């Protein structure tokens, strides 16, 4: 959608986009079209998941049940998270990867274009399956996105959700395989691994995480399914099992999953900041190693979500130490971003604003993560709004802000037109103010003792909840501006984008015309080091 206009301009001579709508969008083998599909789908899901969040915030506006039944509230919480995680954030990153990775490494397309198309087209069906449960007699899943048994086994929608997750898992695994094959096999000659943009690196590592953990999630939910429908006892102590086993398997997936949702964001920020600071990223290699260390550590910290389930002391201690260690490579990244700005020559277009907000607000989320990692303190924080505040800082002002920044950053390359800088900035300032009004008070609520996943609360929590809800509505409304800016840029904008778009932009993706023609790099480009952001290999 974003570049319907693509083919009438700078197109390559004989390779025009196919004309039929169905042919082009449904049977596509083109990484740009499929990337667009992913991005549009993800935006749609962001709005659906966001409207569920609005139901949550509306019910929590003041004490007393005013809008929905508690059971429906739980369905909203569960669906909100599932839709946001699997429908909005992850597909957005896959879409960005699809669009940009081949451009960045000088590849003509993804390595396995048809599988790429399948990866995408599974998603709308998977979400139809999952969302349809909301209209069924028993309602949707209501056990939280973590689906702990035995509670999750009480719901009839379990089978639908489990199968939907299987489908999403298949989609993610295929998408990840494709990205790995593309990066390892399709680079233009001269594009050495350590000359790749950090975004490509972050995706390479993320793809590895995806392939490693999505099957584990599939296994976990399969055990739920057989426990409910086929009489197995994995999670039933009467039969020798243990409900805690599910939590171990789930979080073995779940923790790497949260880094799946942040590593590509790190990559994006590492592209945006050098561009607008007009100075190469500081400590390129350290950035790559940091991502790899975070990915490695993410496999040995899962039980920090389970400090209150009564683990043996030794386990608590091990998982606490391992979790705290993650602050080190993450800190390296934060410091390197600041050092990239230091000594630069900065301008503050919308993508840069989002990147700066990301660095600050993600770090705040990281700090609360570190607080959560301290086991005795987590005994208090666990399952309160403090946790909710933590993960929205890393997910909304982290992942989602990075995605928005990336959209502004690359939109001119996709559409060939500049978006409205004014409205982009309006969107930014509204978002950054309201998101803090929305989530910062939730720290206080958690510390004061408000549990998460409750539809109603004591009046002592009333004032901060009301502030948070107001922030929520305003933040939600601000996203309509985002929609407006994107639609305007894609269809109505007049101002043409140059090929380089941003003065400080470096890398192969900025050497192709704007909008990027339907097919690029059919003949491998000549990679010249001075054109790359990391052409020098000395650091």
């Amino acid at each position, binding site marked *: 959608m974003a570049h319907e206009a693509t083919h009438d301009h700078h197109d390559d001579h004989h390779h025009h986009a196919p004309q039929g709508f169905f042919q082009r969008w449904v049977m596509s083998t083109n990484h740009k079209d499929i990337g667009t599909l992913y991005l549009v789908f993800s935006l749609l899901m962001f709005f659906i998941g966001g409207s569920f969040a609005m139901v949550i915030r509306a019910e929590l506006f003041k004490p007393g049940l005013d809008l929905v039944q508690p059971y429906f509230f739980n369905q909203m919480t569960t669906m909100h998270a599932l839709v946001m995680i699997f429908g909005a954030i992850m597909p957005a990153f896959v879409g960005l990867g699809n669009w940009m990775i081949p451009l960045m490494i000088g590849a003509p*397309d993804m390595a396995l274009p048809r599988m790429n198309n399948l990866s995408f087209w599974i998603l709308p069906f998977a979400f139809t399956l999952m969302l349809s449960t909301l209209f069924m007699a028993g309602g949707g899943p209501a056990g939280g996105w973590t689906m702990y048994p035995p509670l999750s086994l009480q719901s009839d929608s379990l089978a*639908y959700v489990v199968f939907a997750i299987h489908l999403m898992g298949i989609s993610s695994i295929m998408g990840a395989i494709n990205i790995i094959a593309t990066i390892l*096999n399709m680079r233009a000659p001269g594009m050495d691994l350590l000359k790749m943009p950090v975004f490509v690196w972050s995706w390479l590592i993320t793809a590895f995480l995806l392939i490693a953990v999505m099957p584990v999630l599939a296994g976990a939910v399969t055990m739920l399914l057989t426990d409910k429908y086929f*009489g197995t006892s994995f999670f039933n102590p*009467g*039969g020798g099992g243990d409900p805690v086993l599910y939590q171990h398997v789930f979080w073995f997936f779940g923790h790497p999953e949260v880094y799946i949702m942040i590593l590509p964001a790190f990559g994006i920020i590492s592209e945006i900041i050098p561009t607008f600071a007009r100075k190469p990223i500081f400590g390129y290699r350290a950035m790559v190693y940091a991502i790899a260390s975070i990915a490695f550590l993410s496999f040995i910290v899962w039980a920090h979500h389970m400090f209150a389930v009564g683990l043996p002391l030794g386990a608590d201690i091990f998982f606490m130490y391992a979790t705290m260690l993650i602050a080190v490579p993450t800190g390296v990244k934060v410091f390197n971003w600041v050092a990239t700005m230091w000594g630069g020559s900065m301008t503050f277009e919308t993508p840069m604003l989002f990147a700066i907000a990301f660095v600050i607000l993600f770090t705040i989320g990281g700090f609360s993560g570190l607080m959560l990692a301290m086991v005795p303190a987590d005994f208090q924080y666990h399952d309160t709004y403090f946790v909710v505040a933590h993960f929205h800082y890393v997910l909304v002002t982290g992942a989602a802000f990075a995605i928005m920044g990336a959209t502004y950053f690359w939109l001119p390359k996709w559409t060939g037109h500049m978006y409205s800088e004014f409205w982009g900035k309006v969107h930014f300032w509204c978002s950054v103010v309201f998101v803090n009004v929305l989530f910062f008070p939730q720290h206080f609520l958690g510390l004061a003792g408000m549990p998460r996943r409750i539809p109603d609360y004591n009046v002592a929590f009333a004032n901060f909840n009301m502030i948070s809800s107001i922030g929520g509505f305003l933040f939600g409304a601000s996203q309509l501006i985002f929609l407006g800016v994107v639609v305007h840029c894609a269809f109505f904008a007049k101002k043409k984008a140059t090929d380089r778009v941003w003065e400080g932009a470096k890398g192969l993706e900025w050497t192709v015309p704007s909008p990027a023609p339907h097919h690029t790099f059919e003949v491998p480009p000549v990679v010249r080091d001075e054109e790359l952001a990391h052409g020098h290999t000395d650091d």
Partner: protein
Amino acid sequence: MSQQHDVYYVPSKSQWPIVAAVVMFLTVFGAAHWLNAEPGDTGFGKTVITIGAIGVLCMFFGWFRSVIKESLAGNYNHQVDTSFRMGMMWFIFSEVMFFGAFFGALFYIRNFSVPWLGGEGHGVLTHQFLYEAYSGAWGTAGGNGPLHVGGAFNTVVPWGLPLLNTLILLTSSVTVTIAHHALRAGHRGRILLFLGLTVLLGATFLYCQAHEYMEAYKELNLTLHSGVYGSTFFMLTGFHGLHVTLGTIMLAVIWCRVLKGHFNKEHHFAFEAVAWYWHFVDVVWLGLFLFVYIL
């Protein structure tokens, strides 16, 4: 590292991905509906799942047919071949992780949950307050938990059919390797013979496993319901069996393609992919034999 970059092959548009998405959806939608069916259900779920499953088969047939055609037409250059290889390798890695989840569950159950329920280590209080009579043993003596879910059962003796099955799979790994060497040496007859043998061995394995399952259900009272012992036993061996089934079918397809002369000394990625898969299935079985049957 970098490949010979002759003109990149962009596969043509294809309807198969969207067909695949639709039939997969139908299959799982039907399955979910079926699982939740009330006693007097019309069988709607069953119908849908049947349509979906047939659709999946047709889709695989159609998709692979078009890929084979393109491959025979010589469209796939070295780079495409490498992409396929990477794809297959990482797919197998994802399968390893899938089995890893179940092996992990088995590990946890045997080393933590069952002993703890029996009062060892971290489980003192659980045992004292809830299951004082339970000893926390594995296998026949208590692998179905403190409440004896599924009733008394006997375990499968590893040195009978399972051992035979181990030998069968090991042999089949050898035969498939011989066939591979034959392919590289260009001995068509030998390929067909040894690949055929591999298929037969796979089928024999499945026959033995079916037999073993029947015996377990009828004579040993070892069922999927036999507490965690039954759960882990049948889920692990069952998923493995499914993979053997898939592998055998793939081997059979490859056999037919050899017959049709689809492969030559250099170009036989499909053959290799299936061989890798078969070795993977084999290795998983060794893990099963050790951790599920013997220990």
